[in-house]
């Protein structure tokens, strides 16, 4: 069998040979590769890629936090990670956190999600930490944040929790002040004086701050440059707008406690096409696992184009994609199942008619 020499390996051996540290008489050393991820983080990154299109920086930030925690290098007196996701609506901020839960625990709901719009008034903070003693209903108000709730999704292999503050700018500043202690000391005292430890928690906050200005910029047009250049300039400008808006909104002591601020980039049409593929795949899994009559379906290119047109907007991102899918595919298919037109394991083809309406065919190809 002929022996083949790999040029890359030759170069690697030559580099090692010339390295003074491994010359004769020196202690033998082995070159290490700091870019290799742990198997868990590799799995997590794969899950991210299968569920989230683009947003590489956000995925890497979360993966880094998980890796630092697993290797014990996270700050022992602070939460395992804290990050603020900024960006326009429909860019995938919340979906990325759900993908993190899916990747770590196999369940996209394995987290505590706090919808900050429910905390618009200062006194509503008692829903989170419970009422202090002496207040009417003190014993009846059970706090949402407890040590048990945080540890609900811990596994033997991974004792880590995810805490999501969704749309944090909508809450009262009382919540931000509460977060100062959590972000700094990783602890919180409840209304009944119990203390919660946040050292095994990744805290993610999302915000649409600056979205009005972003919308204006995105729809206003920025000249007649090539689309990719235009997109790059736009992303850089959106980045600045979002971070400036966050700095204006939050106090300096809050902003300084954040480990990472990541801006989600606006979605291009190609990215939304990939999101549509993911949504269709998830829809199929939903049908095949939960439907009483499992069946297969294909959405032809012309039908996909219509859904994309209806579901994608430069300003609102992929927000309406699910709605378009529900209207064009889910509702008609469920009607076809309910009316008995689809049988077990049928294969349905979804196409468009010349007048633009959706048509549903059934393949008859049993062996």
């Amino acid at each position, binding site marked *: 069998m002929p022996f083949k020499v790999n040029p890359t390996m030759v170069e690697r051996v030559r580099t090692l040979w010339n390295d003074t540290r491994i010359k004769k008489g020196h202690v033998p050393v082995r070159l290490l590769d700091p870019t290799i991820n742990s198997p868990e983080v590799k799995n997590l990154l794969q899950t991210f890629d*299968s569920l989230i299109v683009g947003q590489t920086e956000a995925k890497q930030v979360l993966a880094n936090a998980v890796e630092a925690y697993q290797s014990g290098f996270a700050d022992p007196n602070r939460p395992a990670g804290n990050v603020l996701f900024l960006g326009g609506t429909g860019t995938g901020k919340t979906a990325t956190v759900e993908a993190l839960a899916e990747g770590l625990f196999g369940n996209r709901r394995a987290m505590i999600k706090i919808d900050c719009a429910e905390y618009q008034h200062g006194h509503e903070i008692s829903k989170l930490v419970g009422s202090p003693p002496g207040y009417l209903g003190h014993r009846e108000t059970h706090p949402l944040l407890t040590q048990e709730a945080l540890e609900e999704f811990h596994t033997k292999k991974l004792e880590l929790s995810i805490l999501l503050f969704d749309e944090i700018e909508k809450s009262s500043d009382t919540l931000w002040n509460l977060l100062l202690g959590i972000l700094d000391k990783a602890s919180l005292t409840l209304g009944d004086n119990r203390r919660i430890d946040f050292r095994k928690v990744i805290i993610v906050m999302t915000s649409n701050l600056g979205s009005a200005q972003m919308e204006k910029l995105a729809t206003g047009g920025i000249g007649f440059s090539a689309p990719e250049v235009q997109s790059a300039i736009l992303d850089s400008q959106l980045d600045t707008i979002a971070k400036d808006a966050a700095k204006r909104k939050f106090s300096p002591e809050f902003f300084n406690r954040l480990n990472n601020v990541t801006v989600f980039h606006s979605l291009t049409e190609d990215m939304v096409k990939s999101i549509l593929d993911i949504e269709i795949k998830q829809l199929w899994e939903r049908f*095949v696992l939960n439907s009483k009559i499992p069946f*297969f379906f*294909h*959405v032809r*290119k012309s039908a996909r184009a219509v859904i994309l047109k209806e579901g994608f907007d430069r300003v609102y991102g992929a927000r309406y994609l699910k709605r378009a899918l529900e209207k064009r595919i889910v509702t008609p298919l469920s009607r076809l199942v309910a009316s008995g037109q689809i049988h077990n*394991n049928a294969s349905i083809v979804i196409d468009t008619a010349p007048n633009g309406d959706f048509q549903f065919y059934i*393949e008859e*190809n049993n062996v």
Partner: protein
Amino acid sequence: MSRLLMLYVKGGSSEPYYRLVSVEDPVRFLGIMRARVLKDQINKMDENPLTDEAQANALRTLKVKLYETGYKDYPDTDEEVAKLYRRFRASIS
């Protein structure tokens, strides 16, 4: 990146069949399909209980396979679809 594959299922509670499917992760897909076929089989057992031996035999004979078609996406024309089915009907049976 998903690709178009031919799924062949034999065993379980239904007649053998094959279907064109768009698959990104074949391992995950096969897992889902097996879960669904077994779920159907278990549901059927409520009506017609099977002996342990029959259950073991059903599991042993269950075939869920994927075959390459060479296509990335579902064909645009019905003729191409029919051609694909004809090709697999000849090769599988």
